[in-house]
């Protein structure tokens, strides 16, 4: 019995071995690799990718990058996207090939026959390696660092041969940065103090320190982050610590397509949280909710504008952050795009 069982299993193993031994042979090189390299590209992670022809087909699995491609007027090259890449509206008709960078669907990606895959740092290294071995480079980018966005726009303008549009976007972003910085400067001259801010990042009491690029949003909009000096990038703060720091403003960043009512519910939760009732932010009701999408690539000025308007209410009395956001969306994605969106971006 024992010998027979062993023999049986060895046959199974041998059969499997025979099958995959066949697979050891490399597939024929994709036709593109026969050509000479046309150009190389260094992504945000520092990895170098070689391209053998112009990029015509793109799979993008990050909503910030897909928005960037749309702003660069390259949407027609997108042949696959992640589930969250639904803004601007032109992307909604594109085929979904995965949930996000963290959960791509390799069969669907490969079936889309892309020249390149664009993702964020959540994309698994071994999966990227596998795609690269099949002749599809994976470009990894950080999409929520406002200080690196213009450089990202310029690089992708070069990559996709749309330098002119990239320069237009950078000029618009420069102008927006100057406008926001100017307003903050005015506020300081007028005697408005920089507020102390507790920034709650997606989860209760989860914040952001200097080690995270999200901190830049608070710094650039003139706030003082209570968690700036924490040792880890996304610290979970204790209610005692928050009460001790006594923030003037609390901002909660939320993910997903939320309505104003849902955002109001999130705000009420913070206002009624026993641990935070002793803070100035709660007693003066300076608690705000903002959509995470505004922190992605080219949309960052909207996040800065909302923040600054909450931090310096006197100076921003005559400024409308929603109008600013509308201006940005219509410039980046075309006139009328703002009207097509039925979303709440911030509350109240």
């Amino acid at each position, binding site marked *: 019995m024992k010998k027979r069982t062993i023999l049986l*299993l060895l046959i199974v193993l041998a059969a499997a071995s025979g099958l995959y031994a066949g697979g050891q042979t490399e597939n024929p090189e994709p036709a593109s690799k026969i050509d000479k390299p046309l150009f190389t590209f260094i992504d945000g992670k520092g990895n170098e990718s070689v391209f053998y022809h112009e990029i015509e087909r793109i799979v993008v699995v990050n909503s910030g990058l897909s928005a960037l491609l749309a702003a660069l007027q390259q949407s027609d090259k997108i042949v696959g996207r992640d589930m969250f890449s639904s803004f601007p509206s032109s992307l909604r008709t594109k085929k979904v090939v995965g949930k996000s960078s963290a959960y791509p669907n390799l069969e669907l990606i*490969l079936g889309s026959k892309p020249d390149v895959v664009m993702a964020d740092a959540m994309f698994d290294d071994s999966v990227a390696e596998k795609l690269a071995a099949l002749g599809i480079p994976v470009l990894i980018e950080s999409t929520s660092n406002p200080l690196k966005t213009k450089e990202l726009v310029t690089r992708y303008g070069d990559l996709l041969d749309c330098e002119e549009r990239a320069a237009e976007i950078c000029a618009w972003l420069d102008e927006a940065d100057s406008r926001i910085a100017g307003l903050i400067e005015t506020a300081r001259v007028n005697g408005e103090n920089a507020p102390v801010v507790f920034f709650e990042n997606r989860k209760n009491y989860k914040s952001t320190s200097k080690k995270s690029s999200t901190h830049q949003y608070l710094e650039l909009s003139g706030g003082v982050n209570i968690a700036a000096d924490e040792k880890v990038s996304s610290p979970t703060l204790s209610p005692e610590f928050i009460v001790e720091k006594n923030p003037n403003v609390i901002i909660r960043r939320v993910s997903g397509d939320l309505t104003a009512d849902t955002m109001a519910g999130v705000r009420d939760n913070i206002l009624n949280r026993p641990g935070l009732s002793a803070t100035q932010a709660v007693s003066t009701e300076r608690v705000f909710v903002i959509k995470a999408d505004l922190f992605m690539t080219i949309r960052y000025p909207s996040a800065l504008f909302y923040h600054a308007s909450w931090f310096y209410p006197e100076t921003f009395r005559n400024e409308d952050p929603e109008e600013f956001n509308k201006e940005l969306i219509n410039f980046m994605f075309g006139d009328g795009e703002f009207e097509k969106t039925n979303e709440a971006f911030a509350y109240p």
Partner: protein
Amino acid sequence: MKKQTKPLHTHKWRQGRRKNILLLFVLLCGMAATFLLSVFTGSAEAGLSEVVRCLAAGPEIESGSPVDYTTHTIIWSLRLPRVLMSLLCGAGLGLAGAAMQGILRNPLASPYTLGISSAAGFGASLAIVLDVGIASVFSTAGYLLIISNSFFFSILVLGIVLLISRTKSYRPSTMILAGISMMYLFSAGTSLLQYLATNDQLAKIVFWLMGSLMSVTWKQLTIISVFMAVVFPLLMRLSWSLNILSCGEEVAQSLGVHPRFVMVSTALLASVVTAGLVSFCGVIGFIGLVAPHIVRMMVGGDHRLLLPASAMSGSVILALSDTIARTVLTPMELPIGVITSFIGVPFFISILIRRKGTSH
């Protein structure tokens, strides 16, 4: 009367033997059917005939071949290694689970009882968050660091558990408690690393801990096959000793079986194969626990049959789970650990209920 006893006994033995052979044959057919189902099912739009053409074309196609290059790549580079790995990985976990339950004489034992999954998770997290590992000297590739770290820490925890157990003559209870202690220790280490991680790193840790066969390569498959080809016959050699050991250590000793040798060798073999699997596929839960239990309900506790049958049923369960995970919510792909747990938990509960009934 005496004349009738022997033939009746022989008849029953033959009947039992036929039944066991039939069961192995059915499981083998189940494996083949699962293989075919899994290879022909996927999120890519490839018809049955197209898949057959791709398989028939072999791993290499000439330019100008009527077979679509993309579909061929999907089948040969993505789906086929993945399906084979799911069969092999399920077999390894089922085999290791049956072996661990055998030496620990505990129905709740699994390949992870000695803390391997937690240690592997810690090793992988260490590579993801701090970018440090034992392979740093040889390679800077992140995924190689993760694989080598998880394997190293799995073997390390096995060494620690065996050292602790040695002080108590490798008593099963000591091994289990030492394993659980290590599990808590390394889980705490992983939690700490998760706290230190950035959001991107955290997502990678969670993805790894849930287990995935997404990025399986032919090379990985070869390595795991070698592990299995070495470990399986060795465990089979120990199967009769495991049967004797189940009667108690004193009985085993009186029959010439060295309990310590059997326990340590079995633990080593089962853990090494588990460590290899976890390093490449992450932590895939419940297969190693459930597969041996299902088989035990059908064939009883004879390890000569239990070990191969557990391996076969493990491979069927995992391959089916993976096929469900990658197709049920297309284009989304569910973490395989979610599906194995959904299948595993009801079985686990039914086992608990059965045990309670028995005690009454």
